[in-house]
């Protein structure tokens, strides 16, 4: 079965190929003119252009955050190109037949069931996943659109939603992550190119998993996708996100924004398997993954859960969060973050309890190998109105070898006297005795490490949709190669 985007992981970074397609790329640098150009390219209405320009103005006045436990030379934001579209799409294809065959072959290589008919014909069991693929900055194709439309679910590139559902986009865009939220969110708001838009109407349970697959291809380009998911009252949707990039010697910037909105009794489950190129064994190249992800549980008894398996990127700076506004709403964060070689990750979550009876759970599993640095940073905040709020945090670190680091930065700001907040943390090492037990039973050390690490991550993998869970296990195995002996 090859319906999962990360089915392609092989012995090394197998997704590291470059696709040779003619592309339409803006010269490096950012200015008001560039922002206008991006907006014009997309034939956006004036309100959208104004929104971008407002964000650009705010961004100009901001400085990059420096509090994360990561080290890298300053980024030259004038050296990045802020828009790249595969040329064959400049004339907006109306069907897959018009898509550059080279692009389609790329997706085939990556195992994405882009070809709707093929997938539906079901040579293997037809995957119950609809895919929106974003290549560099542009959404290439969205599959299963018709089947989703029957259920009333809107799943399309956000650039399309701006035209087809402006009332929804205007109402919710920036409502969860304000433009000035942080430096990278402001940048994204100014130059975001594409991403997915999902709206699940009242009382509808989305009939299939929705999935977006992101890939950075072009050299010296940043990717700034924007995702907006709205689950109306009583709706349910499960959304998967997968990412890869070619191997390049220089670093590439990825600054996405994801906003989730859950109304009364709605539930959104958002799963990410992130496998951006992490750089080579010496720490050269790789993606800077500076992403803002936040969900708002606006409605009573709504629920948002983030599940992430992060093995890629040279540097990760990412805190998928939930604002628990509705009474009795629930936020969850389940994370596996693996770093090897010279990777650095500063990742965690924020659970902001505003409504009464709100509950949140944080399960974080950090695995460090090589010379990598892996930090968990989490905030649990309760407001005076969050009567009887509950949080449970469990934060476990696993170390492989002596040269890596694991760090935990938990912040608790409790203003609700009736709240219950629990925090547990452990740090352990894969011991020589564990390895030898496995070897003595005939299991080679690499397989043994992978088994031990998978066991460590079990609580999180359980939260992933089935096919992703299997792939996530394989991905860990590949990412840990060379981590032993």
């Amino acid at each position, binding site marked *: 079965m090859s319906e999962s985007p990360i089915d392609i992981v092989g012995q090394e970074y197998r997704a590291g190929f470059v696709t040779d397609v003619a592309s339409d790329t803006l010269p490096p640098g950012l200015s008001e003119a560039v922002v206008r150009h991006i907006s014009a390219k997309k034939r956006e209405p004036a309100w959208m252009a104004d929104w971008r320009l407002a964000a650009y103005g705010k961004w100009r006045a901001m400085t990059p955050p420096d509090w994360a436990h990561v080290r890298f030379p300053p980024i030259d934001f004038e050296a990045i190109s802020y828009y790249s579209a595969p040329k064959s799409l400049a004339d907006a294809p109306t069907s897959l037949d018009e898509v550059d065959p080279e692009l389609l072959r790329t997706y085939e290589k990556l195992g994405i069931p882009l070809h709707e008919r093929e997938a539906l014909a079901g040579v293997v069991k037809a995957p119950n996943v609809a895919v929106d693929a974003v290549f560099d900055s542009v959404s290439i194709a969205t599959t299963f659109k018709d089947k989703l439309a029957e259920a009333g679910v809107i799943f399309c590139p956000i650039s399309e939603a701006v035209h087809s559902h402006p009332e929804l986009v205007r109402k919710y865009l920036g409502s969860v992550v304000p433009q000035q939220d942080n430096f990278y969110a402001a940048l994204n708001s100014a130059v975001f190119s594409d991403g997915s838009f999902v709206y699940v109407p009242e009382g509808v349970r989305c009939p299939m998993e929705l999935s977006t697959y992101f890939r950075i291809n072009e050299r010296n380009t940043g990717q700034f996708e924007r995702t907006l998911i709205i689950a109306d009252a009583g709706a349910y949707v499960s959304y998967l996100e997968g990412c890869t990039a070619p191997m390049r010697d220089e670093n590439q910037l990825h600054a996405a924004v994801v906003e989730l909105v859950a109304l009364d009794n709605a539930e959104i489950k958002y799963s990410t398997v992130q496998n951006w190129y992490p750089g080579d064994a010496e720490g050269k190249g790789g993606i800077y993954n500076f992403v803002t992800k936040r969900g708002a549980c606006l409605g009573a008894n709504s629920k948002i859960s983030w599940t992430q398996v992060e093995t890629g990127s040279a540097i990760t700076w990412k805190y998928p969060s939930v604002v628990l506004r509705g009474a009795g709403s629930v936020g969850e964060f389940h994370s596996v973050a693996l770093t090897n070689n010279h990777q650095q990750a500063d990742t965690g979550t924020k659970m902001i309890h505003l409504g009464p009876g709100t509950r949140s759970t944080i399960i974080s599993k950090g695995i460090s190998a090589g010379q990598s640095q892996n930090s968990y940073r989490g905030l649990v905040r309760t407001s005076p109105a969050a009567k009887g709020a509950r949080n449970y945090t469990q934060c476990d670190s696993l170390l492989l070898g002596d040269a890596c680091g694991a760090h935990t930065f938990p912040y608790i700001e409790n203003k609700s006297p009736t709240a219950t907040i629990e925090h547990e943390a452990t740090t352990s090492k894969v011991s020589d005795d564990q390895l030898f037990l*496995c070897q003595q039973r005939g299991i080679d050390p690499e397989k043994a490490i992978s088994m031990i690490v998978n066991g*460590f991550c079990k609580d999180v993998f359980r939260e992933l949709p089935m096919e992703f869970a299997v792939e996530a296990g394989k991905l860990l195995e590949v990412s840990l190669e060379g981590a032993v002996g």
Partner: protein
Amino acid sequence: MSLLEVDGLYASVNGEPILKDLSLRVEAGEIHAIMGPNGSGKSTLANVLAGRPGYEVTAGQVSFNDTALVDVAPEARAQAGLFLAFQYPVEIPGVSNMEFLKAAWDSHLAAQGAQPESAVGFMKRARALATSLGLNPEFLKRGVNEGFSGGEKKRNEILQLLLLEPKLAVLDETDSGLDIDALQTVAAGVNRFRSADNGVLLITHYQRLLNHIVPDRVHVLNEGCIVASGDKHLAEKLEAEGYAWLSG
């Protein structure tokens, strides 16, 4: 050809010489008991045979099934049929016992160029074995040795022995810390394992295990070499007189 041949073996742990000119031969179908006081090198011998990192052979030869063992990776020795039952089995949290056993068995089959056994068939076999060793099959779902009692850990070692069907089983003080019920179960497991085709090296401090498993040969280890060998009556002498006569 002997199953196991140890010739003039010298071995060090962390640079300290422990085994000094040790020689031993185990034929298929035999059970050998290695006895001796604490610190005589019994566990070192077990670990050297299994190829544990940190145990360095400085001189001498070890061959197993006619193959020189020094420099062979521990997993390759295991796949070739050399099994070590641990004195202190370590826990692997989160990895289910069943998953671990299946991975171990698959590695043995792969080394023989055989197809992996079906998960269903293997699980059936493992459950039946567990039950026969007085273990609730539910324990196969728990993490490897995770939260097991001392007795459960040792029964689990015997379960692995019976599942993997090695050619040579080295039991490193498997009897230590066991109550009489667990001891009898472990002994019954070893007796069930023994056949004309395989051998057992039974490392023990006490004679009591040998009431349940009758050895063909008994060796007394002192200060890193074998100082006396005999039949099962040697063990009885040790039980009666202790180890004090060794230093006399």
